[in-house]
């Protein structure tokens, strides 16, 4: 996935003097919330022209660092934050960030879907300065040049809602970089771009194109902080990295000197080997699930049979349609045709609806946990009991006690933390949210489990628990279809993997054939 850079960095006068200072120096950053110490004397530096990874599990403090840098939180005590050797006044204000040349791309990108690409590009300019005349034609021309320079195929005049997720991420990054350029007051020509987990919602293929963009931006003189929990990405894109654990710096290092296992050890404090979880090849009884001729969108008729206990992976490049299978099968997105047979009972999938799927014993654990999976503002109990209200209690005489007992039992069994099921779903970490969703649906004892990116945004420690929950359900006779662009995860849990290209299956890997490189090879092979 190496990317050649076609452009040399244009060095300007004054570079030599600035190279003496790191672009960012953070000294003794501490922060407590209530009694809990989120950050404890965190220090690290980011050098000029490097991509610096910031890693750690959920709750390790990496987002607190970013929130202090962006001015959302005020740090405790008297820390020092220097940009290019000049102290940044604390607490950080947006105007001082602009003057110092620091800009952020947060996970949710900060784009407005109902506006055009150009309007989004100019958003922060409009926020910072008042202009009584906007020359839209000139701005559009400038935007086109900017996109061309970074080889992004975007029309400035289309609405943002027409953009794919990766195009939106590209736009957000280019916009942030463009802001740095606007603040060229002679002293800070290079600036610092902070990318706060820009990739979790992107499939692997798109991540590669984002990385190409990041490298070009670095070649043009910026330095980058790349916040992530994905170790492969950190190994690929960063020059150096700092790992946080429990609010302290667990280590800073040159990335090329580290192996993946070394980094995992720093992150979790102990060694976890995901691939070791890989099940031994097994033999299965006759199929219990038969999918025939599923059609819709880009999908060419897809057929497959699954046996009880079998976990089948679906993968491919973005746009290849692998992730459409489960949503169309479930009725979340309409299918044009096809049939689903569960334990001998067959139904037509055209016009399938979620409630019918559930009645058949088919459940969906979607990738977008907060938008599609559960409601952030309701408690764990309310979310978890939704599909079983009438079963755990009586439909016309719900008992709070019975519902809480059921939720508490499930929270215990699936190790949801904190244990208190009256907590709001939205207050849980990504991993615990996923455990709640698994508990919500697995308690219905489904026959077919549909999963989309089940460990996306889930920290390393909780991943193993998610996997074992799936394995447990499989042991009880459920079959699972898991759409994922995470090849390591597929390797860890799947008995079979289908690889998609342009809407059809181009390769089927079975048992011992499944490993990361075999999947990657099949995905990227030109057919």
């Amino acid at each position, binding site marked *: 996935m190496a990317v050649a850079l076609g452009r040399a960095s244009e060095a300007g006068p004054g570079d030599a003097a600035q190279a003496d200072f790191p672009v960012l120096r953070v000294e003794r950053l501490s922060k407590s919330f209530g009694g809990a110490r989120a950050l404890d004397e965190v220090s690290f530096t980011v050098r000029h022209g490097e991509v610096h990874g910031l890693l750690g599990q959920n709750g390790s403090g990496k987002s607190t660092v970013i929130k202090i840098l962006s001015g959302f939180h005020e740090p405790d005590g008297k820390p020092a934050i220097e940009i290019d050797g000049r102290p940044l006044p604390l607490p950080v204000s947006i105007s001082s960030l602009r003057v110092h040349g620091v800009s952020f791309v947060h996970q949710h990108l900060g784009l407005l879907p109902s506006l055009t690409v150009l309007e989004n590009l100019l958003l922060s300019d409009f926020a910072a300065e008042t202009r009584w005349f906007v020359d839209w034609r000139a701005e559009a021309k400038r935007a086109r040049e900017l996109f061309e320079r970074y080889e992004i195929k975007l029309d400035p005049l289309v609405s943002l809602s027409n953009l794919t997720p990766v195009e939106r991420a590209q736009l957000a990054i280019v916009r942030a970089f463009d802001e740095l350029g606007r603040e060229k007051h002679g002293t800070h020509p290079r600036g610092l771009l902070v990318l706060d987990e820009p990739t979790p919602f992107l499939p692997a293929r798109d991540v590669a194109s984002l990385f190409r963009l990041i490298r070009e931006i670095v070649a043009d003189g910026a330095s980058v902080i790349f916040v992530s929990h994905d170790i492969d990405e950190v190994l690929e894109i960063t020059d150096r990295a700092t790992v946080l654990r429990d609010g302290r710096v667990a280590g800073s290092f040159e990335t090329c000197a580290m192996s993946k296992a070394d980094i995992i050890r720093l992150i979790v404090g102990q060694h976890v080997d995901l691939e070791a979880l890989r099940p031994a090849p097994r033999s299965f009884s006759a199929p219990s699930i038969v999918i025939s001729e599923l059609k819709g969108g880009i999908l060419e008729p897809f057929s497959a049979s699954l046996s009880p206990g079998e976990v089948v992976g679906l993968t491919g490049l973005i746009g290849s349609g692998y992730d459409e299978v489960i949503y169309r099968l*479930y009725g979340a997105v309409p299918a044009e045709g096809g049939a689903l047979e569960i334990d001998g009972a067959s139904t037509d999938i055209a016009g399938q609806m979620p*409630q019918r799927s559930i*009645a058949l014993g088919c459940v*969906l654990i979607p990738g977008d946990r907060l938008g599609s999976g559960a409601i952030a503002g309701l408690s764990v109990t309310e979310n978890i009991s*939704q599909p079983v209200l009438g079963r755990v209690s009586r*439909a016309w005489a*719900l008992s709070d006690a019975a519902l809480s007992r059921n939720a508490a039992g499930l929270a215990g069994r699936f190790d949801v933390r904190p244990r208190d099921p009256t907590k709001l779903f939205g207050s849980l970490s990504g991993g615990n949210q996923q455990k709640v969703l698994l508990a919500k649906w697995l308690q219905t004892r489904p026959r077919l489990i549909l999963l989309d990116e089940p460990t996306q945004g889930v920290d390393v420690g909780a991943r193993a628990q998610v996997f074992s929950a799936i394995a447990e359900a499989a042991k009880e006779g459920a079959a699972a279809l898991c759409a994922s662009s995470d090849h390591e995860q597929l390797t860890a849990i799947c008995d079979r993997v289908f690889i998609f290209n342009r809407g059809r299956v181009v390769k089927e890997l079975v048992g011992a054939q499944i490993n990361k490189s075999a999947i990657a090879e099949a995905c990227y092979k030109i057919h």
Partner: protein
Amino acid sequence: MEGAGRAAFTDWFERLALLLVWAATIALFGYLRPDSFLTWSNFATILGSQSVIVVVALGLIVPLTAGDYDLSIASNLTFAGTVLAVLNVNHGLSIGVSIAAALAVGLAIGLVNGFFVLYFRMNSLIVTMGVGTFAHGLTLWLGDQQTISGVSEALVDAVIVRRFLGVPLGFYYALIVCAILWYLLSYSTVGRRLLFVGRGREVARLSGIAVDRVRLGSFVSSGLMGAIAGVLYVGTTGAADPSSGLTFLLPAFAAAFLGATTISPGRFNPWGAMISVYFLVTGITGLSILGVSTFVQDLFYGGALVIAVTLSQIVRGREERLA
């Protein structure tokens, strides 16, 4: 442990805060005007006369919980009342048949609202505003822009004349509606479905809830409640006034939102709404006994609506900060 105790106390305090404020309001006016304000007949009048607004507020809670507005409910009230009066007075139909027709009108308005919102995917705010105005036009046409008086004594008897413990029966009807709604919202799967649909439509849909059916049900139910309120209103006054019922919309919204800050804070809830109606009217009655002009009503209801929405926003914001 001490911290947990304090948290539990704060929680209870928040739930009961509005009741305490209400009690304080009564105490204040009672102190200022002991002989006119602090009389049972004054309270009985307050309890009886406000049953219409209580039912309107309860009617609003259902679509609000499901994430929709029903601005047509007050014109629905006057329309149903006018239909009742026209049938009973002008056409001589029995009061039972007239009431049934009025309720059917309410259901029909609910269906029309639901149809436009769901079939054409329009914003409920706009649809119900339009449908409400249309229904008001029909009301004026049907009743020839006149107040129709002379409605059957039986209805007036059953709503305002007959009393239990000194309080007109109308109050108890509102109380029954409130209890039924409270039970359905808290202890039935239907109530949970409404809540899920209101908080996250896509989550609800993927969880197997028939979202459109739930929303249609919520419009039909607010339509029915609007009509019930219309019947009560005719019973309270003995006549159908084509316009005065429209002024109930704002107090009812104020009570629905203010109610969402109490009893179970952060959620629209029937007891909270009912208490809010009486809290607001206690304030207004007290001030008018003190001799303050009638414009105080607008100050009070308008101010209460904005403050209530502010408070519920703060409650919601705190939930999100905890998250």
